[in-house]
């Protein structure tokens, strides 16, 4: 069926690097989340590619469904923290988190 395992993983590497670059370079919290999403998307593609290669697609699908559910929770919690932080500090700069006191 699909025998381009190494090509798939080549593109997965590139997608992962794009997300990593976004997280490294950007100072906006929202962009950091977008980078995280891109990285998690590349991991998802890696899981399904390996699942197809080893013939255990059902297991890969179950893992992906788990991953998507957890991703939604992470994004919802993170974005609500972002909006709350914006209301307090009036900025989405990641270094504004430095001002928080316990």
């Amino acid at each position, binding site marked *: 069926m699909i025998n381009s395992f190494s090509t798939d993983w080549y593109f997965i590497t*590139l997608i992962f690097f*794009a997300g990593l670059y976004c997280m490294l370079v950007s100072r906006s919290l929202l962009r950091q989340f977008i980078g995280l999403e891109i990285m998690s998307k590349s991991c998802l593609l890696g899981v399904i590619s390996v699942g197809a290669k080893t013939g255990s697609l*059902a297991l890969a699908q*179950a893992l992906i469904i788990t991953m998507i559910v957890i991703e939604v929770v992470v994004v919802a919690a993170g974005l609500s923290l972002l909006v709350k932080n914006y209301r307090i500090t009036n900025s989405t*700069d990641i270094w504004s988190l430095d001002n928080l006191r316990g």
Partner: protein
Amino acid sequence: MTYHTLLFLLVAVAAVAAVMARNLLLSALMLALVSVGASLILFDFQAPWAAVFELSVCAGLITVLFVSAVSLIRHEAGAAENRARFYAMPLVMGIVAIAAWFYAVPYFEALENWARLGARPVSLGTVIWNIRRFDLLGQVSMLAAGVFVVNSIFPRRKKQK
């Protein structure tokens, strides 16, 4: 170049566009395009359930969450970012792409030779409800934790004196 590889290329280009877009709304929409491409790849791998989840949740719900977050923050409140780093991204991606072509692809080909077939093909229902039943508990508790976090961050307003 096959349909499969073209889909991967689409996802990679959309990911770069999502990172490079100056406008945060455009960035969120490009992220939705990444999700749509990933879901098409999942369909191509004959994993329809995961693809439907990806399309409905990641391309739908997460995009809505991102767009609502963008609408809640003002544009000028964004951090003063150094755009030069973003403009340098195609160059860096090109270097990484060339390096990965020469160094990572032989490694992946070696990995492919290590792949072994799974024990036996089972249905998705068997995996979810029997083999990985413990995961469901984790998912439900994660959802409950998410609801609790959002609820505690945005409490109901009380009457002020």
